[in-house]
């Protein structure tokens, strides 16, 4: 069991990094609690895998330290850390049986054969691999292969954390659900720390208790899926989480009112206060699902022209023009979508204010 900490970690793949852009990881200072289920979410190339490899010891960071339970492990190779990693593509020892694959990490560490057998059978049982134990690993389906990769991590009883690097990429959609549920079950059963890298927000939000959003080598926000959705700390998080992403509109503040050109939107007192004291470019942000769409003018609403309505089955996405800015709304299937002109109301508690791309709160 371990609490993992990264202390002022930065990493560059170049030998003599000079510019900020030479760094794949710019500055990471964070902590992973023992037994938590974490998701590292971010677009391709944002440094997720680099971060994961630094935690597991496959990479030594250019700067900063890694510690497990307060013990500095920065210089330790991966086999000396009590950690396991599952890769994007299943890694198997082709010439071995499933049993031997699962036994491999234990045999390498000189575990006696009776313990090996006990652990392998236990893990095979947890992963539903028991019927396959005698088969050769090479001929199995992708999901079974990925389970074996995971199993090689689980057999070691010293393992405190398992790192997943987009493990479901090669799995068929239907099996993805099963395997993800299986992962959750195992997490609840074994109470290991799981760190799960993905660029798929649905996967991250359903799997993890805590989601960490990464972008261009930095951790932007860590929080529960709900916190990320309701209070994105940065414009990027607002865009990246949710489909479609958050709407952002440049505003000026006067009193308790935000102005988009000549249109006025009422803010709550606290937000307006923050806005008046903030410097930099101000924008309001609102989730498409919280934006109210009315066919006629209601109290506090502003007019917009409808550009497109997409029916997505259980809901509709409306794309509208609000005083020269594009804005999207997500409305339930039952609500009729206005044809040409719509009136939008911004509920005060869901209307957030951002200064220089950062949330004011």
């Amino acid at each position, binding site marked *: 069991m371990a609490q993992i900490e990264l202390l002022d970690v930065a990493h560059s793949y170049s030998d003599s990094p000079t510019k900020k852009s030479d760094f794949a990881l710019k500055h990471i200072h964070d902590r992973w609690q023992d037994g938590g289920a974490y998701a590292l979410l971010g677009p391709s190339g944002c440094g997720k895998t680099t971060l994961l*490899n630094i935690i*597991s010891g*496959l990479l030594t960071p250019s700067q900063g330290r890694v510690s497990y339970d307060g013990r500095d492990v920065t210089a330790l*190779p*991966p*086999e000396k850390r009590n*950690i*396991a*990693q599952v*890769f*994007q*593509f299943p*890694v198997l*020892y*082709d*010439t*071995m*049986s499933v049993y031997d694959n699962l036994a*491999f*990490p234990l045999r*390498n*560490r000189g575990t006696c054969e009776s313990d090996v057998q006990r652990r392998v059978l236990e893990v095979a049982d947890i992963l539903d691999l028991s019927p396959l134990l*005698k*088969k*050769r690993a090479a001929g199995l389906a992708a999901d079974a292969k990925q389970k074996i*990769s995971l199993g*090689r*991590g689980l057999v070691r009883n010293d393992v405190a954390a398992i790192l997943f690097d987009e493990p479901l990429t090669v799995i068929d959609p239907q099996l993805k659900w099963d395997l993800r549920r299986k992962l959750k079950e195992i997490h609840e059963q074994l109470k290991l720390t799981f760190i799960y890298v993905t660029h798929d927000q649905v996967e991250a939000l359903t799997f993890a208790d805590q989601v960490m959003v990464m972008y261009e080598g930095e951790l932007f926000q860590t929080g529960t899926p709900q916190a990320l959705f309701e209070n994105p700390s940065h414009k990027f998080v607002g865009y990246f989480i949710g489909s479609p992403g958050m709407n952002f509109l440049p505003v000026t503040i006067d009193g308790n009112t935000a102005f988009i050109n000549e249109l006025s939107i009422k803010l709550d007192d606290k937000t307006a206060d923050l806005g008046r004291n903030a410097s930099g470019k101000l924008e309001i942000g609102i989730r498409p699902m919280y934006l109210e769409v009315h066919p006629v003018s209601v109290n506090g609403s502003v007019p917009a022209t409808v550009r497109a309505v997409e029916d997505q089955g259980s809901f509709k996405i409306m794309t509208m023009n609000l005083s020269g800015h594009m804005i999207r709304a997500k409305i339930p299937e039952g609500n009729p979508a206005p044809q040409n002109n719509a009136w939008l109301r911004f509920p005060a508690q869901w209307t957030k204010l951002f200064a220089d791309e950062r949330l004011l709160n």
Partner: protein
Amino acid sequence: MEKWENNKAWFLVLPVFIIVAFSAIIPLMTVVNYSLQDIWGPGQQVFVGIEWFEEMLANERLQDALWRQFLFSGLVLLIEIPLGILIALAMPKRGWGVSASLVTLAVPLLIPWNVIGTIWIIFTRPDIGLFGVTINSLGIAFDHTARPLDAWITTMLMEVWHWTPLVVLLAYAGLRAIPEAYYQAARIDGASVWATFRYIQLPKMRGVLTIAVLLRWMDSFLIYAEPFALTGGGPGNATTFLSIYLVKIATGQFDLGPAAAFSLIYFLIILLFSFIFYQALLNVGKGDK
């Protein structure tokens, strides 16, 4: 089943058939034709059935050459394949060293084969050759033109120098094709260098090593130009390999019938062993399930 009325599609196969006919079938059938006849001169021949085959199989000099050939090819595989893998494992994986070592390795492969024989004649000459002079000055008597063992050692050295680079290139290509994640997983699983080689690198190189074994087997079994230039098959018959003996019969003594029968036996041996190696390597490590 109804027959197709229009069979013109067969004409599409014709070009391939003609090419294969001229490149393989006609030459082979010419040899078969010679192997069944006794020929004294143009227009003077008599059909002898399988007499030449019986004679050749009973020929002691041919049997000696055959065992010599098996020993030679066996040694070639036993030395070149492991050595090639070792060198490939030791080669740099990135940086300027990659191109430098690849070019250096490729040099022996680019030299014409009879030039290689000539290079090694000069290299091992006891009076002026770098190798010959050096080893003689160390007090070891060495002369590949007089002593059968020295002739063998020289031939093997030449062959290993000439052809191990091919095995290295193939093995290196195989190694480079292994995704990084396998090595990462092996490190996390605590695998030793030997276990990583045995369970990741070797199985992943199976394909290229199959090609390497087949190529080295066939080529070394057919070897002619280099030993012919180096030793001419001597001293005595010490390095008279199959093809050297075959050429002696066919063009030296102009015994076309026996030489043709010999060629066919030779061909069948290579085909048989290539098949055996291929099947063995294809199925190795597949286990019982």
